[in-house]
Structures are given as C-alpha cells and as structure tokens.
C-alpha cells in the first residue's frame, strides 16, 4: 500500500504527512512537483504549507505544476486524494473540488486545537470515523475561509459532500462553518485542519488524525 506525498516549493507538512502514513503501516512515497509521475501509488496526499509562497492566490501556481498533469486525471478516475490546508487550496484551484479559500474573516493567522464534526463517514478518507463523531485536530492557516456561491453550498449539503464542519465558534468565517468537502464519488477530500499532526500521543491535542490514514489503507486494500 503506497501513498504518495507531493512536495511543492514551499510545502511544509510533507514530512509529517509521510510520517502519518507510516504510522498506520503504509509506505510513503515522495512525489516531486516537477515530475508528471505518480510512481504507481495507490493514493496521494497534497500537504500543507505555502506552495510558491502563496503568491497570486494560495495554490494557484502549484495547480499548474507538472505533477498535477498526472494527478488531475488520476483523481478524476477515482484515485484517493487528500488535500490538507494548502493541499485543499490546490484542489479547489484545480477545480477538483468546488469553492475557494480566502483570507480568514478576522485577518489573523489561526493556530488552535480545533473541534470538528465528521459529517460524512463514507469517503475514502473518513470511513474509519462514525458520522456525527466529534474530533479535535490542529488548525493553522491565514487563508482558511471556505467560500462558494449559494447553489454550490446547497449542492454540497444535499449530496452529503460537507465532510467536516467546525464545531463551536466558526474559526475563520467559512460559509456554513465548512471545514472540509469531497467530490461526489468521495475519493477526493480536502480540509483546512491538519490530521497529519495528530497521529501520536504527546505531539498534539489527540490522535484523531489516525483514522484518515487507516481509512484510505482499508479502502485501497479492499479495492
């Protein structure tokens, strides 16, 4: 079971993502932004960070990196893809997921232990959760406000594609407190909070990040 982790110029959390994959018994494979080659992996993680310095718009330049030429059709074909924070921004810029992420409404960088509700426990990355389960993972970003037009938001709600919602106070002004969404097939998931930082006791608020990675391992093994 091989999970690729893409490194863009300015990625920060690629190593933690790879570590999380190994923590649940998967093999982490480094993928390079400049190579249009997925190296035969069974799933891909787009990690957090500030690809290309967040210039132009977060994720806008990374979206046109050579690796994305290979990843976009693979994701459309069903390859499990998880975008975390900057990775979520890249997925939205790629139009693999709808909507966009804009600057937090309070204009401050957030760095908090964030409570989330898992709204959809049937995606490739959330099947080891229970629907309605509350989890706590790290949230750290300056541009985490999820926005989309009303019709798109309604579609996401009706189709069960709101995968995570912020519990308690909305930390960044995201419309309908949306923290993470999926495509209609459920193989592509993006979220602003960071499950890869929450996979080991003593290194974060919880180990609530683990089920993301066990879910995809199980999904690939049974596929």
């Amino acid at each position: 079971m091989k999970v690729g982790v893409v490194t863009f110029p300015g990625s920060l959390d690629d190593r933690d993502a790879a570590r999380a994959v190994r923590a649940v018994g998967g093999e982490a494979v480094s993928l390079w932004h400049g190579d249009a080659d997925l190296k035969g992996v069974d799933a891909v993680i787009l990690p957090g960070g500030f690809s290309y310095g967040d210039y132009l718009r977060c994720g806008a330049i990374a979206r046109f990196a050579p690796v994305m030429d290979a990843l976009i059709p693979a994701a459309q074909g069903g390859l499990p893809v998880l975008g975390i924070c900057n990775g979520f921004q890249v997925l939205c810029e790629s139009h693999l997921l709808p909507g966009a992420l804009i600057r937090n409404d309070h204009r401050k960088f957030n760095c908090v232990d964030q409570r989330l509700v898992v709204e959809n426990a049937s995606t490739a990355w959330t099947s080891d959760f229970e629907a309605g389960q509350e989890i706590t993972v790290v949230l750290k970003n300056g541009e985490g406000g999820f926005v989309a037009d009303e019709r798109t938001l309604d579609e996401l709600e009706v189709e069960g594609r709101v995968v995570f919602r912020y519990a308690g106070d909305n930390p960044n002004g995201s419309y309908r407190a949306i923290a993470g969404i999926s495509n209609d097939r459920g193989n592509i998931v993006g979220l602003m909070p960071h499950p890869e930082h929450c996979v080991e006791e003593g290194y974060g608020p919880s180990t609530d990040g683990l089920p993301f990675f066990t879910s995809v391992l199980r999904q690939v093994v049974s596929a």
Partner: protein
Amino acid sequence: MGHVVIDVMLKPEILDPQGQAVNGALPRLGFEQFTDVRQGKRFVLTVDGEVTDEVLAAAREAAEKLLSNPVIEDVVSVRDSAHDEDPGR
C-alpha cells in the same frame, strides 16, 4: 515594447478582509467620507512589439486561466496600456 494591463477584483459577494482592514484605517487618517474599500489586483504583461488583437486574446485567456479564479474573482479589464493616460507601471 507593449504592455497589457489586466485588472482583477473579488466578486462583489465575496468578503474582502484586506479591503476591510484598509477601510478601518482610513478614518484614523481623517478620511471619513469613504464607506467601503475593495482591494483588487493589477497585472502588467510585457510583450516585444505591439499589443495586437492576438496578444490581447492571449492575455484574456491567461487572465481567465491563471491570473484570476472564476469562483471568487472577476477579470474586470484587459487592455493595451498605450490607451491609458497612466499605464500604472
């Protein structure tokens, strides 16, 4: 050498926290008459030679594909800077 000027603005319905920050600072400087600020982006693209219709068409395509995100932004203007009084460079 020619220059194409492209202006991109957030869609009116999208919150603009940067514009709000600027809006909050204006009254402190005595500018009380402005009720709102929206902040946009200007790109100046340089080409060898004249800004032809083909150059403008390519600039429009670049503006839609890379320079703006149609989910949250509008390309409000793509023009030859030679027609501007102040090309803004």
